[in-house]
């Protein structure tokens, strides 16, 4: 069922990307093969494979190949995704330390940690990883709103 949905989606994506690739023209070119032949070849092959799986999902496992997803998982998955997106959005604005403390607290609770445990883990991770990467390993991380505290 989901497999058919996915291969159907792949077919549509192949068609859209194929239409986009058709419009790729080099303004001037010194070589016989332009920028569009190779992607079109790939899309053709991918569409053939997806079509095969769309028509006969049972060919390779079908529904039995799908790992079952308990309904209770869906809100958890969405929450996890929301946390990841929030980390990405706040990474520079709020700075690494604060955004990762908030993120780690949320993730820790999501994975079954208790309140106090989550606070400890979050603070240790946020500060510890900042010092490890920014100060020791020379990977520059944004300070964000905490930049005012420096110097």
């Amino acid at each position, binding site marked *: 069922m989901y497999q058919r949905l996915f291969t159907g989606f792949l077919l549509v994506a192949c068609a859209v990307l194929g239409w986009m690739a058709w419009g790729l023209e080099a303004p001037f070119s010194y070589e016989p093969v332009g920028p569009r032949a*190779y992607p079109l070849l790939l899309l053709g092959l*991918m569409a053939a494979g997806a079509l*095969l799986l769309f028509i006969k999902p049972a060919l390779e*496992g079908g529904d039995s*190949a*799908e790992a079952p997803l308990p309904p209770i998982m869906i809100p958890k998955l969405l929450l996890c995704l929301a946390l990841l997106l929030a980390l990405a959005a706040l990474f520079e604005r709020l700075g690494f330390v604060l955004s990762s403390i908030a993120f780690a607290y949320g993730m820790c609770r999501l994975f079954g940690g208790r309140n106090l*445990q989550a606070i400890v883990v979050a603070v240790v991770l946020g500060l510890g990883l900042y010092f490890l990467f920014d100060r020791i390993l020379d990977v520059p991380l944004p300070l964000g709103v905490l930049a005012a505290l420096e110097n």
Partner: protein
Amino acid sequence: MDTLHYLGQGFGVALSPNNLLTALAGTTIGTIVGLLPGLGPINGVALLIPVAFALGLPPETALILLAAVYLGCEYGGRISSILLNIPGEASAVMTTLDGYPLARQGKAGIALSISAWSSFIGGFIATVGVVIFAPLLATWAVSFGPAEYFMLMVFATACLAGMAGDKPVKTAVAVLIGLMLSCVGIDANSGVYRFTFGSLGLSDGIQFVVLVLGLFSISEILTLLERTHHGQKAIKASGRMLFNAKEGASVFATNLRSGVLGFVFGILPGAGATLASAMAYMTEKRLASKDNRFGNGDLRGLAAPETANSASACGSMVPMLTLGVPGSGTTAVMMGALTLYNITPGPLLFQNQPDLVWGLIASLFIANVILIVMNVPMIKVFTRVLEVPNWTLVPAIAIITSIGVYAVHATTFDLFLMIGIGVFGYILRKLDFPLSGVLLGFILGGLMESNLRRALSISNGDLSVLWSSPISMTLWALVAFIVALPFWRAWRARKRTPALQPDA
């Protein structure tokens, strides 16, 4: 005798204090990454690339670090297999079959030490194999032109699908998705923007660190959500820690056979450690006498997959170094790291960068020795790591992954892209499409296209250049054979089933 001279030179590089320290750090990190369920060599290696860059490591040191991590992972994966019955990474699945029963019989210490010994022998055999075969292959591969290269990559991708066993079509689609993803960005030959959707962040393509971490770390985190338990109950390793001479002798033949088999599977593009360990286990089981205890704690059943997966990890360096075609997902990531250093792996590497190649090969020997020495006394420390609960581990993995991605370009666009790719990878994984196919396709994609276009430029558009030389014709024949293999297997299976189920 040139080889020995170069090998000596390589040891000179690998034994410099800095590189030795790097190998030590790499093997420790690798063992820990390998034993934690949910982190494998691919994530471990990908996470360290930005760090190696930020520290300004020279290319040979960076490569030694990554190789040490890779080898360490193959060692570490066995610990959780034996003590928890949960493989720390994919290639340690077969280790659980006999390792866990041994641990339940109170022989955990023996199981751990004999599997470490097996990994050592496997790694040693395969590294000797690398020393012998890699220079030969490199001298031969110098004569490859763009057409032969293109065919070689077609062969590598076909191999992946043909070897995938029960799902060749899904693997092929996964490879094609990877190849398509590598098309994103400015076309190097004509300057045309392809599939960027007007986004500035996509104009120079998808960074491979972003792709790897999205595909493997983020999707893994989403998968781990289904297992939110509080720590794990590991079997305590007590009693005798070292195996005795009799036990060692009983698995020695297995070690030798599985080591060679693992090396061969490592060289084949796309086959990798997972397949090698499974094949070694099956072979040993078939060879064993009738009274074997395979599945109930046979030492040979533990030694076979462990020898094979280390051997295949070392063996997969051969195609990466000599042909520029990765033999496994992890070497694909290592190849990506090399291209970040503006080094294109391939036959010329042996001539132009002997220090890099031979330093790496020598460091495989050294890492192997460090690992066996470290693994026996430190086993208690490593088992402690297994007690870290997921609610600490997962936030840490997620934040370190984000740091790794952010470090590449310092833009948050890459973080969003990584999450998007991660969700896509999660869906693929749920529907049983192999993610390693996407990765290999992505790494090979750029090279494949540029070689195809170069070949056709030389021939002025004449397609027959693709099958005009003996090498490319041989490769076409091999591709045809590999593509036919799944069909033949399906046909044979269909012929057999009616006898079992007449009305099906």
